[in-house]
């Protein structure tokens, strides 16, 4: 399967047929939604929860409004702490910068904490190929996915779609684990296997949950303890962050932390939250000798310039929207063809890739609004997705969207003309009725060739009545309604008695 957003349709059709996986994922989402909802009650009742989310949204608004300033403030303070800050315009430059660090510090093996941005820039592949290093993902799910060579299923649970048997099979095949379906034994084996890599790695690479501008600190969030290893044991620590992952101070960072974990795993806090302020000092042993932060743009600053699209940078990667999304839950991660599946991908991918390649992402959406109803950072997914649709219709140079063709637009032109002209509208209804009803059997149309055929894949369509509502109104309903209303108004007691009876 060639997993690219361009192949969304064909991959989705394959994935949606995996009924057992679908049912499992929907069930899991239900459990996680329950856990997250319960965790959010720590803030109080519904309106207190809304306030907590609103505060999260405001923190993100402030960060975005002051982005350049905050990044520079962070840089100054990080430098003061002995952290070197590097800037990368795109994925290629970010990879080259890390490669430079690998060479400079004579790195042979790398241990990693789970980082979405490292996957976004394709770092593992690049470094293994171009720098000849060995890389070990530290997060269990990510490690399994790395061995298997597939896309992570969910940004938080990369392998949650896999059964125990599948996981055991992958580990048996790649790292010689004696086959077992007991979760504790699997965890124990991988723990021992990776412990050795953690101890020996020359360089640790992580992402960043939030960079704190006022102190030049990094906040990293995890449950497994891989990030603590990766940032404590190796000689060098490289933290990758996209430009929007910065906030003013710890008050902001810790409020976002509470929203992040509660909407991610339903925890009030994760097992570990690391706050890193710089490389180890002369008398210290744990912690890196050298620490770098790579600030990566990769298309974001162009989106930032657009008043609406800048909001795509609000996301704090909790993944809550995913478990709300009826589409993602049915098709899984693969059709999105990239590392951010579900609503996050729909919003982020078009500005980082381009509008043409990602068209199915922002179009394969019922605009149900489940995603934005739970978002703790104030993202308006629907506004952004409909904005992409508008940009695609008109064509957009900034984000590689070619104007849609006239043929595709013609249907909507006809519809729009019908809307403006009742005569045309009525004629259109007449034609549609003749066209549809000639195929009707017992009041329903069950199949139809052509562009409407999709509808009939799983459902029928009711025959169109001979008279429209409009005609019924003219012919009888108007008069009938007048008489009924008059009676009701003339005899309210009767109506009341009637109702109580």
């Amino acid at each position: 399967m060639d997993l690219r957003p361009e192949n969304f349709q064909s991959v989705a059709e394959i994935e949606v047929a995996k009924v057992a996986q679908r049912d499992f994922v929907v069930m899991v989402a239900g459990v996680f939604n329950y856990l997250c909802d319960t965790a959010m009650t720590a803030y109080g009742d519904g309106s207190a929860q809304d306030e907590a989310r609103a505060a999260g949204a405001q923190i993100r608004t402030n960060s975005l409004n002051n982005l350049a300033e905050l990044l520079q403030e962070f840089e100054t303070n990080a430098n003061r702490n002995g952290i070197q800050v590097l800037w990368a315009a795109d994925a290629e430059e970010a990879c080259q910068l890390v490669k430079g660090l690998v060479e400079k510090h004579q790195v042979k093996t790398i241990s990693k904490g789970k980082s979405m941005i490292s996957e976004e820039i394709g770092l593992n592949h690049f470094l293994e190929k171009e720098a000849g290093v060995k890389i070990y993902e530290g997060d269990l799910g990510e490690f399994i996915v790395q061995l298997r060579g597939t896309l992570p299923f969910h940004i938080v649970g990369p392998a949650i779609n896999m059964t125990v048997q599948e996981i055991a099979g992958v580990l048996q095949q790649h790292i010689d684990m004696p086959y077992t379906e007991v979760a504790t034994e699997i965890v124990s084996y991988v723990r021992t296997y990776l412990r050795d890599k953690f101890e020996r790695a020359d360089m640790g690479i992580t992402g960043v949950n939030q960079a704190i501008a006022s102190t030049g600190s990094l906040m990293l969030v995890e449950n497994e303890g891989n990030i603590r290893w990766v940032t404590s044991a190796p000689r060098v620590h490289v933290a990758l962050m996209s430009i929007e992952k910065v906030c003013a101070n710890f008050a902001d960072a810790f409020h976002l932390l509470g929203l992040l974990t509660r909407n991610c795993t339903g925890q009030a806090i994760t097992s570990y939250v690391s706050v890193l302020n710089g490389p180890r000092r002369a008398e210290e042993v744990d912690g890196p000798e050298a620490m770098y932060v790579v600030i990566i743009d990769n298309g974001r600053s162009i989106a930032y310039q657009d008043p609406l699209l800048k909001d795509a940078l609000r996301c704090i990667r909790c993944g809550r929207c995913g478990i709300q999304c009826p589409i993602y839950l049915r098709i899984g991660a693969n059709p999105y063809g990239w590392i951010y599946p579900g609503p996050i991908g729909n919003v982020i991918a078009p500005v980082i890739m381009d509008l043409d390649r990602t068209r199915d992402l922002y179009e394969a959406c019922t605009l149900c609004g489940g995603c934005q109803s739970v978002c703790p950072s104030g993202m308006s997914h629907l506004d952004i997705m409909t904005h992409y649709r508008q940009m695609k219709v008109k064509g957009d140079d900034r984000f590689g969207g070619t104007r849609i063709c006239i043929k595709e637009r013609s249907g909507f032109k006809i519809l729009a003309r019908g809307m403006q002209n009742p005569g045309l509208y009525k004629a259109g209804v007449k034609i549609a009725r003749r066209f549809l009803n000639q195929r009707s059997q017992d009041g329903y149309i069950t199949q139809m060739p052509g562009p409407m055929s999709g509808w009939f894949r799983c459902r029928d369509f009711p025959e169109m009545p001979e008279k429209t509502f409009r005609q019924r109104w003219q012919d009888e309903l108007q008069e009938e309604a007048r008489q009924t209303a008059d009676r009701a108004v003339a005899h309210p007691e009767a109506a009341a008695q009637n109702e109580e009876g």
Partner: protein
Amino acid sequence: MKPGNGLLAKRSDLMSKVSLFIPCAVDAVLVSVGESTVRLLARLGFDLQYHEEQTCCGQPVITAGHLDLARDAACRFISIFEEDEVVVSPSGSCVSTIRHDYPRLFEDEPEWQRRAVELGQRVYELSEFLVDVAHIENVNAHFSGKLAYHKSCHLLRALGIDHQPQTLLKNVHGAELVPMQDDHVCCGFGGQFSIKYPYISEAIVGDKVKNFLASEADLLVLSDPGCLLNIRGYLHRNHPGRQVKHLAEVLAESV
């Protein structure tokens, strides 16, 4: 509360005039929904008005991104309805289009934007109108059996309408409103989505219907023509005999 007395006594003359906005899908296909809306509102004593020149609100054009095409149609829609004190529609998603999408069509035209916003404040979804505006919670309807309620996306999340239709259904004589798993989750319609991504749509509506069947309700009720076409079509194909109805159709059946 004596709903019967309340409904006629509380209503001012002003509010007794109701202008109907009948969405295109109801006008052309789901005529009985429009008819039920008329019968229900007339029975409650409202003086109904229907502008025969109305067509479609333009939602499909807007959600597909053709804002330029929708603009003129929106102007026409506004001109038709803006003299009315109250406009009522049996469609949450069309009301949402007028209330939320129309003002955005006129980002650069403040005068039209003002008119759009003002109209949006007076266009109500049916259950919202009955409960929030007319303060009617019991319409004296009858149904023998169990009802399940599907919370259509645009009602629930775009308009914030949740308790209103459920209150009306709870007060239907002879009916019991039963819980349904994932009642707040989308049915998989999504307009063009259902045609362009039929296999995904099928999976979603399939789960919706599975949950309906598991609820053991006799009838599924909802308040959006799009969801109704989708679920009714699916039931007819896969579970003939199982029924889904629009809220107006249920409420129109009087004791």
